[in-house]
């Protein structure tokens, strides 16, 4: 589904990603761990097309398409979804209006009819409930005044609505209480399917107890330095990154 080959990316001339290779097959869940500043969010942002990052080398194929040729919105419509580490606020634009625009754009892209207002409302309420957000949040401005945890739930709710081919979660678990962590993991798990994959960026093994990964990668200094199964996450939890010979101070490069 997703193939990343020798990906190099830099921001304002500073290299951040330094040769990433990664292959995600349909139905798989991959976890990416690694010290602060190692390039995890950068990887996620490059995948969705953030323009601050320049790809200097390498390629990304998504369902056989050259992802780097596509605009941000084209990638989204092709089925890429990023739950942001820091979701932005869009004051005055209600969650409902935002979601409805997004969903109907997607439906139109797939040649489906737009959802009428009542069906949309029903769907939105159902998905909000799945992440334990009260329907009141649908009327509020996008992330406007939401708490950290509420923002994260809102991201997952959007993912549940959009049903992407590849869901990228950037530290969605950070800032969540224990119950919320489970709720969100359950939400993600209901989406798991043979033709849908996930790339889950996290610092904590805890999340991976709930969203069980097929593959775990460790990213350090812009490169994947180790790949394993879920066992790897547990060992990291126990021993820390020093165990892999990473000097955390240098890792950020």
């Amino acid at each position, binding site marked *: 589904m997703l193939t990343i080959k020798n990906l190099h990316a830099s921001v304002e001339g500073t290299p951040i990603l330094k040769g990433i290779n990664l292959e995600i097959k349909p139905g798989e869940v991959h976890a990416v761990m690694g010290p602060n500043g190692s390039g995890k969010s950068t990887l996620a942002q490059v995948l969705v097309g953030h323009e601050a990052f320049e790809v200097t080398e390498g390629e990304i194929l998504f369902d056989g398409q050259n992802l780097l040729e596509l605009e941000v*919105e084209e990638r989204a419509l092709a089925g890429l979804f990023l739950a942001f580490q820091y979701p932005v606020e869009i004051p005055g*634009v209600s969650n409902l209006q*935002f979601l409805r625009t997004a969903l109907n754009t997607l439906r139109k892209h797939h040649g489906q009819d737009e959802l009428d207002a009542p069906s949309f409302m029903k769907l939105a309420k159902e998905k909000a409930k799945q992440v334990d957000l009260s329907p009141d949040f649908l009327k509020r401005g996008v992330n406007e005044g939401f708490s950290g945890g509420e923002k994260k739930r809102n991201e997952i709710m959007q993912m549940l609505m959009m049903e992407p081919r590849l869901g990228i979660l950037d530290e969605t678990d950070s800032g969540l209480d224990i119950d919320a962590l489970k709720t969100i993991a359950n939400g993600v798990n209901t989406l798991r399917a043979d033709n849908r994959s996930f790339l889950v960026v996290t610092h904590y093994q805890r999340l991976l107890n709930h969203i069980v990964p097929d593959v775990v990668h460790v990213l350090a200094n812009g490169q994947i330095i180790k790949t394993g199964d879920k066992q790897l996450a547990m060992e990291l939890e126990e021993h820390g990154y020093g165990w892999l010979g990473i000097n955390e101070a240098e890792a950020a490069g």
Partner: protein
Amino acid sequence: MAESNKPEDFVKHEYEAGFVTDIESDTFEPGLNEDVIKRLSQIKGEPEWMLEWRLEAYRQFQEMTEPNWQKVNFEPVDLQSISYYSAPKKDSDKPQSLDEVDPELLRTYEKLGIPLHEQKALAGVAGAGTPAESEAESTGGGGAYSNVAVDAVFDSVSVVTTFKEKLAEAGVIFCSISEALQEHPELVKQYLGSVVPRGDNYFASLNSAVFSDGSFVYVPKGVKCPMELSTYFRINAENTGQFERTLIIADEGASVSYLEGCTAPQRDENQLHAAVVELVALDDAEIKYSTVQNWYPGDENGNGGIFNFVTKRGMARGKNSKISWTQVETGSAVTWKYPSCVLKGDNSVGEFYSVALTNNYQQADTGTKMIHLGKNTRSTIIAKGISAGHSDQSYRGLVKFQPTAEGARNFTQCDSLLIGDKCGAHTFPYIENKNSSATVEHEATTSKVSDEQMLFCRQRGIDPEQAVSMIVNGFCKEVFKELPMEFAVEAGKLLEVSLEGSVG
């Protein structure tokens, strides 16, 4: 990746109302003098006192000089080079029914989406179509103007006013001011200039001398006007100025909601629009005045466009009366106007809700004045400015508490949104407080449409133009919700059009 994906690249102005109607007109030779004023008054068959009033205004005007304290830059207007009267030619004196109105004129208004056929208006045929997404509620059919009476002003004259009979049943007078001078001279005489005196300011004095037409509304005691009233101003002729005069009176316990819309053809020269609007609310009366201003703003390089120099003032004269201004300004090359409220009656209320969008080389210096005279008077100011391109915008607001304004209160909120980094936004709040029991609260913010917001929207599949438009609409929400429903939808669409453009 495309070279340019900054928010400002998705903002481009396409002016849809820029066409010219090919129609024969009676137009005065350019130039301004007493004879021009006499001729104007004569053509309109005005009473003698009206001519005297105009001439006195002209005398005062001649003593004045053009103001230059605003934060705008433009070549001074040569008042001798413009014509002060232009009206479509017609055989009969004044059209009595729609059948007698030139079909070319009817087509003009149809093209602009303004229905002059009452039946069609009721059926919503000529309306503005389906509203943009308003939450998830279903939108339903019906035109924007289904319950609105329209006074259509074309250059210097009112062409037609709809639903007059229906309004007359309720006792509401809604007609052109020329007609009011014929039919209800005592009302006009009593109130004209009572809010904006002849010598008020340069352009108001000019208007007092040469105003050609405009709307007149009188809502009698205790009557709630059964329809929205609206005037649609269209400048068509070249080298003419438009000087309309609007006078709205709500008698004791009456209420009315009024909307003004305006467009002009796309031309390389600047044209002057200097209107005066006076509102009078007596005891317990309420006037809501909304403007959707879409004059031609000039082209991408700042050529042409309307100079919009307007004096609008409402007098909340009676106790518990209320004056509310809501404006959405997207047009004009240069705008300066400060719809104001004089809160004279005890417990009277003044409101000002404004959205101003400037793009390309547009300049706007706009805001309001709230003059508190009565006890426990309250005013609210919510001003939203959006600047894009090379445009420059200033909010200028005066809140004044006179010694008599015991317990008066004001709340002011000014928010600026910048799109790109070549535009400017400025805020000039003035507060004069002569009563220690009065309170004033002021909030101001400046924000940008950020790259992060754009990325967020686009990551959800929303195209960049739609994303900008959505963010801007969200920013304006508090003001849009003050507009009559039908017009809120139209205003939203207008912003969308004003922000329309393609990548690169």
